[in-house]
C-alpha cells in the first residue's frame, strides 16, 4: 500500500514537472529560437486570439505590431 502511494506521488510529480516543462517550451519556444531580444514580456507574443480576448475583456484597443525578426 505504502509502495503504491509512493509510485502514485512520483507519477503525479513527474506529470506536473513534465507538463510545466512542455508549457515552457511551447510558450517560449518561438521567442527563444528566433532570439527575439526586442520582445517585451509585457506584450502578448505572436498570439492574435489572446490579444482579441484581452481587448474585449479590458475594453482597450489593440496595437498589433507586425515585425520581421532578423
Amino acid at each position: 500500500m505504502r509502495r503504491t502511494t509512493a509510485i502514485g506521488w512520483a507519477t503525479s510529480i513527474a506529470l506536473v514537472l513534465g507538463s510545466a516543462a512542455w508549457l515552457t517550451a511551447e510558450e517560449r519556444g518561438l521567442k527563444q529560437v528566433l532570439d527575439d531580444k526586442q520582445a517585451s514580456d509585457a506584450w502578448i507574443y505572436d498570439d492574435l486570439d489572446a490579444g482579441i480576448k484581452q481587448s474585449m475583456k479590458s475594453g482597450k484597443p489593440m496595437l498589433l505590431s507586425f515585425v520581421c525578426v532578423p
Partner: protein
Amino acid sequence: MASQKDPELKSLMDKFVCVRIVQMGGVDLRVYQFDPLLSWAVMFMYGDTTIYGRYGSASPQAKRSKKDSNPNHTLAGLKAALRAALALHEAHLRNPAFEAVLQKKSGFALPWRYVEETPVAKLHRRLKRVEGEDTKGCVHCHEIPQALIDSSFMSWRKVTDRMLWMHPDPAILGLSLSRDHCARVTAVAEGSLAAQAGIQVGDDLELLDGQPLCSVADVQWVLHRFPDAGGPLTAFVRRGESHRSVKMELEPGWRRKGDWAWRYRVAGYAMWLWGGVTLEDTDEGVRVSHLAPWWFKRENKAAKQKLKVGDVIVEVDGKTGWTRSTYLAYLMREKMPGSPVELVVMRRGTKTKVAFPVPSPRPKIMGH
C-alpha cells in the same frame, strides 16, 4: 524600447493591448491587411475586428541607412497615430453607428484566407504557421504579396493593378505629408490633382474617401483600397479653424502613374522571374542597369546575348511610353512563358531591335 524612455509614449501605449506578431502563418489575410513590404507595420483595432488605422509606411523617397532604418517612422508620428486611434476607439464605443465610418478601414475580399490555403503553399511546405520550437519556416510579411501573385498565376486569376501598385505613395496625388503628424501637407506638386483641388501646404487631411486618418499609412490604405477604375476621391481638409471638402478625380488606370518596382522584394522577384534585369526609369526610357549573370546563364541565354547594360528600352511590342513598373507588369500579366517579347532599345545612340522569349515562370518564394 522607446516607450520605456518616453513617459508620454508609455502612457499612450498603456491604453492599448499590445501584441507582437512575428509570422504570417495562420494570420487571416482578409482581416489583417497592411503594407507587407515593411520590416515593421502597426494596426490599431478593437477585439471585435473594427479597424481604427495603420502606422508604418514606405516610399521610394525614403532612403534607408544603418542609422535610421526607415525615416518615415518618427516618435512624434507614432504618438499622433496612437492619439488618433484612441479617439476613434472612444467614438466607436460611445456610438455603435460610428462603425459605418470605419467600414472602409477593413480589408477587402481575397481568394484565400490564409497563406497556407494558397496554391503556392502546396508547393512550399514552409508556408505554414510554426509552433513552439519548430521555427525554421516563419512566413514573413513580405512573402504574402509574392504568395498571392504566384497563386494568382497558378490558379489563372488576374494579377490586378492593386496587387502590384500596392499602398501607393501620396505623391501620386501630388502630396508630400509630414511624418510627424497624422496627415499634414508639407508640399503640393504643381499641376497635380491635389493642387487642382486647392489643397495647400499646412492643410490637415482629416478624412479621405470618408475615412478618418491616423497616419500616412492610412492615406496609403485609402489609395490602396480605391478602385483601379478610378473615380472621385473626396478629402475633408482642415486649414486653421476652417474646414473644406475637396474632390480629386482619379482616371482609370491611375495607379500606373506610380512606381511599384522600387519595392525591391516584389520587384526583385519579378525581375528574377521575368528577366533577371535590373531596370531604372530615365527621361529617355527604361534603362538596363544590371544583368544578373547567374540568372542568364541558367535561365535565359537568349536575352543575355541580346541585351546590354546601358540599353534604354524605348519600345515594347510596338508600343512606347513605358516605365519599369508598366514594363514588368506587362510581362507578368500579358505574356505566356516562351512567348516572344520584342524590344527596341537605344544603344550608343542607335535604335536596335532585340527579341527574346519570356522565360518559364517557376513560382518560388524568396525568403531569408
